[in-house]
């Protein structure tokens, strides 16, 4: 079974192959409507392989062998190289970085022996658990990519619980989206391109998930961005679509600046290594400077903010709805936006140490996440477009995950990512089904209504998704959200005491329940159907993925049953916390063994509170829409100026779009660029042209005055003198022989006279 772990690279390679094949042969050999013949089977194989990898991983965890880094190929990690080589002293003279690595290696070795010492401090219950965890080994395989400087950079795969979990999620959702699209996108003008990019999108995300080093991660990260660009702008003939695509890509580029800088800082911080293992060990064992970690984590948070649609850089995400709906499902559930969460999870020690998450009560990550959870949810209330409601709910839910990471509840974040993928995909595909029925409109207020009767399957699956999203027991969302709330540590022993985060998340949860009720009301109730034509239930290709996802939403929580329930009821231990056990990496590359890191347990009070809040949200929605019992709140904006003020802010999305598009982008595009260009043309080029003109002018001066005046004057003067004197002298030349003779004689006489005088 280990074969699957060491050959995980095949999984991203399959859809990549699909991309190439579809692009080269799709249209030519299969015709314009059959590109899925290539795409679907390949992704299906990838899905099967992912499951096999998952099974292999479970076996691998159950039957560990070797030390904590035994399955890391030596070339991939400097730490392993340092510990693996028999004479580490040999490298010591190669400068501080090597010594660094060697020191790190020693501490890893100590870690191995010190396991018992640390575990005895923890509860006896967890003893066996911790023991097992410590032996969980990531499987790292790599090949040399290129050499620059003294370093060989590698490319490879890092398979561990987190990667396996996401492999499963990505391939599952992608497979369902592929299938769903065969009907939904059928007859599209660019069906082939659509499938090609769907494959590449999946492939990039899988590549990112399996990345063994941060450089590789960055490659995957950007490729995901480019595919989203292509898919969001799928119908690029219309300007709003290409605008949305541009916005998505450029906003992500802004975050990428953070990614680039963060990755570079970590590269040098970890002694010139991109390896995730090295970075994490360096951060976790205090071998990296705290400032370095802080700077790196702040930079990386920028990247997370853009990719995972966190507050201030979230604006692209709702606009990204311009793409085909299945793509939105893929973006929001499995690929793209979860990349940020995954990245933080991957480099968790960096954040844990850099932001001092343990024992603290607020940090940047928790703050960003908490604010996003509430502000994103509030925006969902004023949307008419059902997809935008879901988009803002994604923003808000991603805020939950980021908060979870910020408060130290790693497993809760990953679990929420896992469950959220299921029900969010279900909801998006459900929204697609609705629009399929109502003539491609997403306007739930004006074009839908009363659809529960004609679209029962869509209705029920959508309802399950909604309940899960709202966090109603026993659907998946409840369990993962509850873990996050417990993880804030406000009510029990968590990592820290994040009261602010708890409050924000509870508000977010209330809003979520309320706005989701609103969508149910508008789409499925609200009197009669208001759109064009006759709505009908979508075909089986569309509804089956919905049913599968809804079913998963109902049962998926079973993978992470808490150790104790309400009233201290404990389920059999062999069923509990399987997700935590298999997914959470524990070892020198994860803060799990740190004293500050504890797992929050299920807390009856928190769970009850969360249920109460979610139920309150549902109830409020029910009373408001169904019963019309909250009359004073209806049309509040018209009654109260204060409410109108706030509504206006929400409708304008807190004016962020205005700030970014109209102020910043416009300023850069027009005045600043124009000023730079003016500077270029007038000043710089002016200098050059001026130099040219001055040269020409001074040349003319020199020519006119000096050359023509002085130097040529001398030459001409000589000629003039010669001419003039010639003219004068010619007068003597009369042609009269006698005159000549007279002169001759006179001269002879004078000469004779002189002769006589001188000689004589």
């Amino acid at each position: 079974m280990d074969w699957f772990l060491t050959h995980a690279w095949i999984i991203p390679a399959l859809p990549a192959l699909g991309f190439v094949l579809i692009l080269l042969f799709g249209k030519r050999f299969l015709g314009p409507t059959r590109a899925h013949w290539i795409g679907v089977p390949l992704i299906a194989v990838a899905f099967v392989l992912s499951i096999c990898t998952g099974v292999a991983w479970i076996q691998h965890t159950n039957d560990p062998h070797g030390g904590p880094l035994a399955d890391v190929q030596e070339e991939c990690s400097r730490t392993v190289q340092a510990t693996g080589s028999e004479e580490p002293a040999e490298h010591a003279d190669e400068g501080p970085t090597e010594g660094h690595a060697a020191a790190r290696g020693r501490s890893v070795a100590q870690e191995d022996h010190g396991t018992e010492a640390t575990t005895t401090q923890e509860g006896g219950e967890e003893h066996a658990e911790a023991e097992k965890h410590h032996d969980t080994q990531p499987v790292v395989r790599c090949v040399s990519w290129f050499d620059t400087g003294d370093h060989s950079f590698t490319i490879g795969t890092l398979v561990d619980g987190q990667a396996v979990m996401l492999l499963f999620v990505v391939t599952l959702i992608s497979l369902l989206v592929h299938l769903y699209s065969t009907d939904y996108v059928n007859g599209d003008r660019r069906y082939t391109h659509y499938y090609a990019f769907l494959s590449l999108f999946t492939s990039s995300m899988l590549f990112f998930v399996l990345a063994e080093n941060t450089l590789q991660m960055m490659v995957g990260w950007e490729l995901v961005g480019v595919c989203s660009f292509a898919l969001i702008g799928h119908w690029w003939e219309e300007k709003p679509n290409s605008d949305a695509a541009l916005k998505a890509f450029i906003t992500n580029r802004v975050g990428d600046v953070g990614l680039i800088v963060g990755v570079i800082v970590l590269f040098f911080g970890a002694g010139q290594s991109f390896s995730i293992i090295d970075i994490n060990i360096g951060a976790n064992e205090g071998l990296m400077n705290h400032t370095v970690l802080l700077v790196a984590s702040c930079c990386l948070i920028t990247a997370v903010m853009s990719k995972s649609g966190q507050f201030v850089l979230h604006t692209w995400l709702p606009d990204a709805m311009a793409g085909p709906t299945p793509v939105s499902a893929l973006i929001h559930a499995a690929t793209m936006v979860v990349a940020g969460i995954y990245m933080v999870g991957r480099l968790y020690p960096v954040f844990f140490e850099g932001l001092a998450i343990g024992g603290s009560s607020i940090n940047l990550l928790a703050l960003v996440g908490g604010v996003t959870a509430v502000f994103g949810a509030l925006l969902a209330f004023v949307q008419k477009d059902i997809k935008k409601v879901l988009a803002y709910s994604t923003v808000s839910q991603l805020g939950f995950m980021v908060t979870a990471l910020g408060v130290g509840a790693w497993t809760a974040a990953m679990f929420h990512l896992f469950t959220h993928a299921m029900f969010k995909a279900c909801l998006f595909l459900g929204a697609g089904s609705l629009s399929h029925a109502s003539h491609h409109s997403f306007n739930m207020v004006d074009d839908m209504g009363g659809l529960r009767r004609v679209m029962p399957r869509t209705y029920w699956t959508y309802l399950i998704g909604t309940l899960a999203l709202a966090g109603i027991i026993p659907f998946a969302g409840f369990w993962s959200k509850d873990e996050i709330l417990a993880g804030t540590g406000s009510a029990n022993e968590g990592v820290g005491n994040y009261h602010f985060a708890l409050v924000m998340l509870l508000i977010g949860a209330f809003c979520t329940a309320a706005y989701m009720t609103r969508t149910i009301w508008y789409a499925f109730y609200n009197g009669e159907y208001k759109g064009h034509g006759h709505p009908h239930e979508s075909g089986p290709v569309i509804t089956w993925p919905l049913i599968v996802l809804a079913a998963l939403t109902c049962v998926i929580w079973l993978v992470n049953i808490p150790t104790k329930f309400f009233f201290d009821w404990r389920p059999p231990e062999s069923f509990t916390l399987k997700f935590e056990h298999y997914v959470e990496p524990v070892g020198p590359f994860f803060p799990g063994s740190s004293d500050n890191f504890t797992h929050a347990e299920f807390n009856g009070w928190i769970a009850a509170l969360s249920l109460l809040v979610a139920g309150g949200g549902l109830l409020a929605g029910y009373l408001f829409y169904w019963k019309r019992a909250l009359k004073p709140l209806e049309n509040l904006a018209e009654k109260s100026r204060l409410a109108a003020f706030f509504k206006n802010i929400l409708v304008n999305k807190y004016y962020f779009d205005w700030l970014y598009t109209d102020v910043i982008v416009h300023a850069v595009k027009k005045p600043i660029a124009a000023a730079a260009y003016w500077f270029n043309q007038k000043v710089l080029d002016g200098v050059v042209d001026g130099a040219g003109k001055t040269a020409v002018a001074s040349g003319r001066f020199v020519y006119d005055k000096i050359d023509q005046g002085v130097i040529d004057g001398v030459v001409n003067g000589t000629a003039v003198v010669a001419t003039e004197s010639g003219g004068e002298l010619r007068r003597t030349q009369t042609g009269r022989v006698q005159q000549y003779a007279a002169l001759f004689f006179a001269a002879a006489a004078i000469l004779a006279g002189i002769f006589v005088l001188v000689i004589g």
Partner: protein
Amino acid sequence: MNDFLHDWGLAVITFLPLVGALVMLLIPKTEEQTHKLVALGTSLAAFAVGIWILFEFNYDAAERMQFTIDRSWIELINSRFIMGVDGISLPLVVLTLLIVPLCLIYSLNHIPEPGNPKAFLILILILETGMVGSFVAQDLILFFVFFEVVLLPMYFMIGVWGGEQRQYASIKFFLYTLFGSALMIVSFLALYWLTGADSFGMADLAASSGGISSTAGFLIFGGMFIGFGIKVPIFPFHTWLPDAHTQAPTVGSVILAAVLLKLGTYGFVRIGIGILPDPAHDWAPIIAIVATIGIIYGALGCLAQTDMKRLIAFSSVAHMGFVMLGIATLTDYGINAAVFGMVAHGLITGMLFFLAGSMKDRYHTLEIKRLGGLLVQAPRMGWILGFCAMASLGLPGLAGFWGEFPAILAAYQPAEGLSETLFRTCMVIAALGTVLAAGYLLWLLQRTAFGTPKEEFENNSHVSDVSPTEWTAWLPLLVLILILGFLPGLMFDVTNPAVQAISSVTGG
């Protein structure tokens, strides 16, 4: 045969195009087809020899000069005819040998107004001699001669076959570059006299350059800085570039962008840093600052453009900024990135200029306002444009990334003795430059390729998709962009030993 290659290979690739040009002189002007074939044949033959050299090159000793030729030349001034390639020159030589045949293929049915393929093609071949010669010359005077040989054909190319303002552009190009050359030759001579080296050979000079005083070194490097800097071009010496590019015929722009600009950066690496490592240290912060300004400034300039070709030209300023930033770090990472960046920029921007030329052929204008919907009318061409835009903005997985990212990376930790604060600031600003790059390139893509065609071109039958000649000329470039993007090791492994030999002197 191998002996011949090792003894004379470099001279062959350098002078074969010149021989071709001489042969063409004997063929009457009216035989246009023969001219095209002869020109293409010679350049392909040179390319074949280049490929052969690529195979015969000893990659385990890439830091050493190989295929060396060392003959006496101008004994009076101790200048010798020395040629050789190492890991740094090899990719550039091969790039040149590749680009020229592609340009000639493209020229098979794209001779710009006012025609006269004979003269046009002869100029290209002379250019090739000059460019290859510059990359293989290992003697300063020889280098200088080849460096100058390049100027004149380019001048005529812009001045005769250029756009409406060709006179202005060509004169500006010629004089500006010549001005730089003048300072450069002064520096070369000063270097020779002050070091008291035995000859103008670069190796000789490098060995004895330690003896000159730091002030003299600073000034000499300054002369080279301006000379090479104009050619690169770095801010603020770049203003000739947009004019030259905009006015030059397509093939001229391609050669200019793909190869000519690299003469400057190559000069910095080989002569500037190679011979004067200590003054390079003094200049590095200045270079880093102007490079960083260039990155942001070039990008802003791009955003202000209304003409597609001029926009691409301005993007060169930004891209060469990354290359110069890499060089300024004086580290092996940085210089490796710079050499990679040179080749990547050659491929990508060359390709973009090809596209601009072909679009101009179809639309007879490159004014962005009037374009649009290329993907509708010529989908393949639109795709290629999108691909090149992505490559140009430094998307990982395509060649552009490996010139940019490692350069930014290197700036985090420059060579010993350079200010980390300054370089890290530059690093962050350069990283911000990538956002702007995405901005202007995608905006260009949106305005030209997306949307629907404007009314005036809606039913224009001129707008056809990529023709077979174009495919032949472009495919090698596209494939290389992709391959180098996925396997950067192909190039890094070649350049690395040679770069390390240089950076070991600078303390990088």
